[in-house]
């Protein structure tokens, strides 16, 4: 997604809420619809485990 950031500088906008300015107590006072949408986005992305490893697991002869 391409859009300007908060400073008007061109950039890429994600679908994650920026919670860096909010305490845990404040987190619970956020717009519930907006919060739920961002939680769902984060939860859906857990479906795939992004593991990277050098080498690979054992392999078996198949012929």
């Amino acid at each position, binding site marked *: 997604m391409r859009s300007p950031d908060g400073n008007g500088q061109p950039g890429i906008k994600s679908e994650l*809420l920026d919670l860096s300015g909010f305490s845990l*107590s404040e987190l619970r*006072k956020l717009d519930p619809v*907006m919060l739920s949408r961002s939680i769902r986005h984060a939860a859906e992305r857990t479906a795939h485990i*992004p593991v990277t490893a050098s080498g690979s697991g054992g*392999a*078996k002869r198949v012929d």
Partner: protein
Amino acid sequence: MHTKDRLASDPDLHSIPWDTFDRLAVGSGGLSAVRLLRNTDRSRRLLLLAGLVDLAKTAEQVTGPLSSAEEAWDLLVRAQEAEPDALERMIAHPYTGSWAGYTTRLIEQGLAGEGPLWVHYGYFHTLAAAAAIHAGLDFSIRVPVWNDTVVLPTLGAARLEEGGGFTTAEVHAAAGTFTINGERSRVVPGTPAWSPLRTFRFEAAGRILDLRLDDLDPHRGLYHPIPPERLAETEAASWRDLLGEAWRLIVEHLPEYAEVLPSGLTSIVPQPAVPFRLPSASTGEAFGSAVIAAPDAEEPATLAAALVHEFQHIRLGGLLELVRLHDDDRTERLYAPWREDPRPLGGLVHGIYAFFGVSAFWRAFSRACPEDRLAAFEFAHWRAQTWQTLEAIRDDAALTGEGRRFLSELATVFGPWQAEPVAPEAAQWAKTLAEDHYAGWRLRHVRPEPGPTAEVARAWAQGERCPQVVPGGRLDTESDGEWANARADLIRVRFGRDGETKLSQVWSEVPGALEGDRRLIGGLADEARAAYQAALDRDPDEAATLIGLGLSLPAGPARRALLGVPELVRAVHRLLRDAGTPPAVGELAGWIGEALV
């Protein structure tokens, strides 16, 4: 969630400026870029945590016999109010991220975990307890016990005596101390039943790296919770010494990375040593963590390269929370010079970024220490293999515009490195290793088409010229055979300290090493060829020997066939064996090579 007392302003969405994106692509961007990635991952973790706490309101069974999720949340809130850094330590803890991902997956997908759901969910309670301890609060909270063990993330592990299985204990803190109280036993820090998490601080030229050596946390692995595997003190001391030396090398040779690496790599998960190798891994869910096998005491530079490698994966994992570089195609369809198996596009993008960093390290090290033959070899090897991979995918249709831009930016820095001079022997052996690996990959994963294979076999049997051979075949993700890449290990032995002597001493200890391999890597190609041919007379199907024969041959059709289409040579030879008239493998390869396009 409460809906009253709404805040005056809502949060924005995370974003990344294009210039930061471009600088990250070339391994730059400084601390501000890494902090941006950290902040993004922090929000991801908080969102998952908030989602899990919300879930417990309507599914109380997720906490089972533990304190409620609200109690754990409230304890976190108290910790933040008393000492904000206490909460930040827990949110930034790498395994908070992997726990949040794992537990969300269990619930979202209805999966069975390693234990009851409440045990996994209850890691949240241990996070709250650890945050409260860091904040100096007085509190009590009930946490899960798994096989008599309670791990308090970032602090350590208590070994109770509860009879095993899944039970509970109370973490109680008052007046600056804490205890872990089970039904039958009690642990106090400072006693033999308490294993504190080991933390190290390294300083080199004013640069500080704080690392935890985490052998305790249940979420330190890659996929699912694992029990503690406490290292002996001597092993931990060895890790400390080598990590310190590796850090010194990074500071000295790669100062731009040394500036930012401490913000992106905070925890090392030690794994048992693998002879002659240093495998490592990481997961995008655990920003800040790398899983690394115990390093060779004589090769701190290899450990330094591994730290840079994993840091690059961590950086890219963070960026991918913000930006899609490719679509969700996870088809394992592409050749990667660093893996035995076909990889999806995303795996190659990750690998390119990681080995770009590795190339940068060896390039700088080799420039500073031109007499270091291993450094020269590693630079020659990784720059060529990584560049070839980049060239292969930079126009892949599954890349997004951002993905194309990322690789293009990277190429502007990486491309000129390809022309830099390296020692001829380093270049030669890098080429040999590349040919070796690619031929091995084809033997493992490319299946020749039956029709053309039979036609080639028929032509041989009739004494005809070989029909034109175009490299092709069908990709199969399952490997046809299993063998070690011993020649890669032997090459590195040869280029290590006292390499030639060591090669003759330890070659037989290298897993899978053949007599022909020792001679080939020792520079005795004629003797190697004789050894490989003798081995093929005994077993003409042996994959490592087939490729070894190809590597030992001078340039010509037989070498071309054995390294370019080894799967076809083997398949045709199998048919001729079945017909009862098998030729020498080298002779058949030479005949096929004449027709190879």
